[in-house]
C-alpha cells in the first residue's frame, strides 16, 4: 500500500518534471533565433517550425524562418568554406514571409524582409552576406594571443569560449589549439582540438544542404577531423610521445590525402627526430611540392633537407636536385586519378542546352573529348 503510493507519487513528480522541461513556443522561438545566430541551421529550423504553430507568435516565427531561408537561398555562397546558395529554398523564403504577414498584416519588419527577398528573386545578381563584424571582432581578439605570449591561459580560453558561443563553426578551436601549443600547453591544446573536431562535424551536419554535393561536405568533414588530428599529433610530438604522435599525424595524412603542408612538415619533423632520414626526406619534399605553408616553415623544411645530405647530390647542387624532386612529385600527383568510370564507355547523358533544349552530341563522336562538369557557385 505504502509502496504503491510512493510509485504514484514518483510518476506524478516525473510528469510534472516533463511538463516543466518542455519548452514553451516562446522559448522555442528564442532558442531557434539563438541557434540561427550561431549558424546551426537544422536545429534552428526545427525550433522555429514548432514556434510557428503557436498563434500568438506565428508571425514572429514565420518571419525568422523567412529570413533564415533568404540567407540560405541567396546570401550564403562561400560564407563558410564549401557553402553555396540553395536555389531550392528560395520559394520557401518568400512563402514564410508571406505567412508571417498573413498572421499579422501590420508586421512592418516582415513586409520589409519580403520586399528584400522579392528583390533578390528579381535581381540579376545577389552578393553573398558580408562577414559579421561581431564575429570578426571576436576572431581578432582570439588571434591577438598569437603574439601576446605573456597573456594568462585563462584569458585565451575565455576568448575562445566567447567566439565559439557566437558562431558554432570549428575555426576558433583550431586557432586556440595552435596558440596553446606555442605556449607549451599541450594537454589543453589536445582537449581543444578534440572539441574542434566535434564542433566541425556538428556544424557540417547542421548545414549539410549548404554543401550541395556530397563530395563537398565529405571534404569539409575530412578537413575538420584532419586539422584536429594534425594539431593533436603535433602536440604529442612536442610532448615526446612519438608513438601517439605517429598515429595522429598519420591519421591526419590519410584525411588530407597527403596534401596538407603543415601535416607533411610535421611528419617530416617526426621522422627526422626518429632518425628515419628517408621518411623525413619524403615528407619534407611532399610539403614543399604543395602550395601554401608559411614562409618560415618552408624555409625550415628546405634547410632540413639540405642539412640531411642524404643522396649524393648530382651536378647542379642542392637547388637543382630539390627542383627535380619537386617536379617529379607534381607529375605523380597529376597521374593519380580516380578509377570509377575509367576504361568504360562514356555513359549516355541527357544533356540540354543552357536554355533547356536537347543538346546534340553527334559532333563529338570520334574525337578526343574533354568533358568538364562545373557549377558557377
Amino acid at each position: 500500500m505504502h509502496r504503491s503510493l510512493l510509485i504514484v507519487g514518483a510518476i506524478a513528480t516525473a510528469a510534472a518534471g516533463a511538463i516543466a522541461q518542455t519548452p514553451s513556443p516562446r522559448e522555442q522561438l528564442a532558442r531557434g533565433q539563438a541557434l540561427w545566430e550561431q549558424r546551426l541551421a537544422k536545429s534552428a529550423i526545427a525550433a522555429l517550425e514548432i514556434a510557428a504553430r503557436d498563434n500568438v507568435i506565428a508571425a514572429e516565427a514565420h518571419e525568422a524562418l523567412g529570413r533564415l531561408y533568404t540567407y540560405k537561398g541567396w546570401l550564403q555562397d562561400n560564407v563558410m568554406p564549401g557553402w553555396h546558395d540553395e536555389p531550392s529554398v528560395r520559394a520557401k523564403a518568400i512563402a514564410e514571409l508571406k505567412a508571417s504577414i498573413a498572421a499579422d498584416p501590420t508586421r512592418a519588419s516582415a513586409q520589409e524582409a519580403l520586399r528584400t527577398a522579392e528583390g533578390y528573386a528579381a535581381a540579376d545578381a545577389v552578393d553573398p552576406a558580408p562577414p559579421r563584424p561581431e564575429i570578426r571582432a571576436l576572431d581578432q581578439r582570439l588571434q591577438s594571443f598569437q603574439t601576446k605570449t605573456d597573456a594568462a591561459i585563462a584569458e585565451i580560453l575565455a576568448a575562445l569560449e566567447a567566439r565559439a558561443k557566437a558562431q558554432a563553426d570549428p575555426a576558433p578551436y583550431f586557432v586556440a589549439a595552435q596558440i596553446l601549443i606555442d605556449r607549451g600547453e599541450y594537454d589543453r591544446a589536445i582537449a581543444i582540438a578534440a572539441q574542434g573536431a566535434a564542433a566541425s562535424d556538428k556544424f557540417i551536419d547542421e548545414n549539410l544542404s549548404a554543401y550541395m554535393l556530397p563530395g563537398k561536405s565529405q571534404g569539409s568533414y575530412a578537413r575538420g577531423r584532419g586539422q584536429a588530428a594534425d594539431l593533436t599529433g603535433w602536440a604529442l610530438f612536442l610532448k615526446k610521445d612519438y608513438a601517439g604522435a605517429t598515429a595522429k599525424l598519420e591519421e591526419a595524412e590519410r584525411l588530407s590525402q597527403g596534401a596538407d603542408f603543415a601535416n607533411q612538415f610535421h611528419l617530416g619533423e617526426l621522422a627526422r627526430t626518429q632518425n628515419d632520414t628517408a621518411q623525413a626526406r619524403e615528407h619534407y619534399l611532399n610539403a614543399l611540392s604543395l602550395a601554401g605553408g608559411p614562409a618560415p616553415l618552408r624555409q625550415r623544411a628546405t634547410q632540413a633537407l639540405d642539412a640531411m645530405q642524404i643522396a649524393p647530390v648530382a651536378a647542379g647542387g642542392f637547388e637543382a636536385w630539390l627542383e627535380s624532386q619537386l617536379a617529379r612529385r607534381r607529375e605523380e600527383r597529376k597521374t593519380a586519378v580516380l578509377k570509377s568510370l575509367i576504361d568504360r564507355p562514356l555513359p549516355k547523358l541527357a544533356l540540354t542546352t543552357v536554355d533547356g533544349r536537347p543538346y546534340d552530341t553527334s559532333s563529338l563522336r570520334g574525337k578526343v573529348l574533354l568533358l568538364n562538369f562545373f557549377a558557377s557557385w
Partner: protein
Amino acid sequence: MPHLKASYAKYQNDPNVAFLLVSIDEDMKRLQRYINEMKFPFPVARLTTADAEKVMGIDNTPTTFYVGTDGIVRYMVVGGESHGDSPARVSWYVDQLKAGK
C-alpha cells in the same frame, strides 16, 4: 575555368579534339551571367545535379573527364588545380589520348 580557355587555344583548330563544359547549376540566371562573363570559346551544356551524381558518379565540382576517340573514358580528375601548371596538365591528358595511349 580560365585554365581551360588557356588550354583550348592549342586545340581550337584541331578537328580531332573537342571541349565541352557541362553545368550542373540550378540557378539559370547565375549560370547565364557566368557564361556571359567567361565568354568560353567552346560549348556549354547542362545536366541536372541528380543525373550528374547518378550517371557520372560526380560528387564534387569541378570534375573533368578525358574521353578517347573510341568513346572510352580514360581519365577523371576531381577538384581544382593547386599547382599553377593547369594548362600543361590539361594538354598532357589530351595529348596522351591523341597519341592513342
